[in-house]
């Protein structure tokens, strides 16, 4: 994988059971307003602070 200083990586903990994904967004769509809790290990205070950065989000669960 390429590593760029222009790329911010962000892991998102999600629920263990995933609900029905009835409206998955396709590539080309605009990211909706995002409210995240407990942002850690980053200088960002909210997702808006990633403005102007390429962002790689990984949804994960601890299990």
């Amino acid at each position: 994988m390429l590593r760029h200083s222009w790329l911010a990586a962000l892991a998102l903990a999600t629920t263990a059971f995933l609900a029905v994904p009835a409206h998955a967004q396709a590539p080309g769509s605009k990211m909706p307003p995002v409210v995240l809790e407990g942002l850690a290990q980053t200088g960002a205070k909210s997702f808006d602070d990633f403005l102007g950065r390429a962002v790689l989000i990984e949804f994960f669960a601890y299990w």
Partner: protein
Amino acid sequence: MTDEGKGDTEKWIAAKGAKYAYGYDKGGKLSRYFGVSGIPHVVLLDANGIVLYSGGAGGYTDELLRKATAGALPKPLWEWSAAAKNAKAALQKQQFKVAIDEAAKLGEPDGGPAIKTALEGMVKAKVEGMKAAYQKGDMLGAETASKSLQKELAGLPEQADAAKMAADITANTAAEPVLKNQRLIAKIREKAPTKRKEVEAALEDLAKIRKSASGTYAAEEADALTLQLRAALNRNK
């Protein structure tokens, strides 16, 4: 995420010594938005918040990464020097002319040239994205981008491109029915049907759209959403 789950996650992060940035997707809203059905799931965004990839962790390419990082800010906003506060404030307000002008006042030590170049790259990418949407028949995407860019690019030459796009869409008689159907599809997405009856009703509406909008981008969108809804129904049998 539940409180209990959050506690477990924090323990897991500490035990693994994970150093990456992380946060919590409260209530799984973002997971649902992206239709996450397996973990890990990856979403790649470009500097303008456009989704370039959404899917399994191994599914994105170096080419997509290059595309995502092209024109991105070399430093995140929270690392900008205090001298760049005006450029930062303007960018947060999506006032690109002001942001570029303020960046031009900054010297090399404050990252001025790099910030200015990146902002100009963001403007270029926004305009290209709008034009690409129109070219592929995504009239709603082009119209939405045109409206927002006419404000965001005020004072820049590229604002004229956004205004011209609005005029082109208005003059294009074929655009109106596509827009109408895309708005209907957008409403279905916004409702985010999850109950079986709601999903079945949405599928009926989409079938009508697919029939009436055959051969257009709206039909492609209706097809894609139909597949997602059917998959959701099958998973919950």
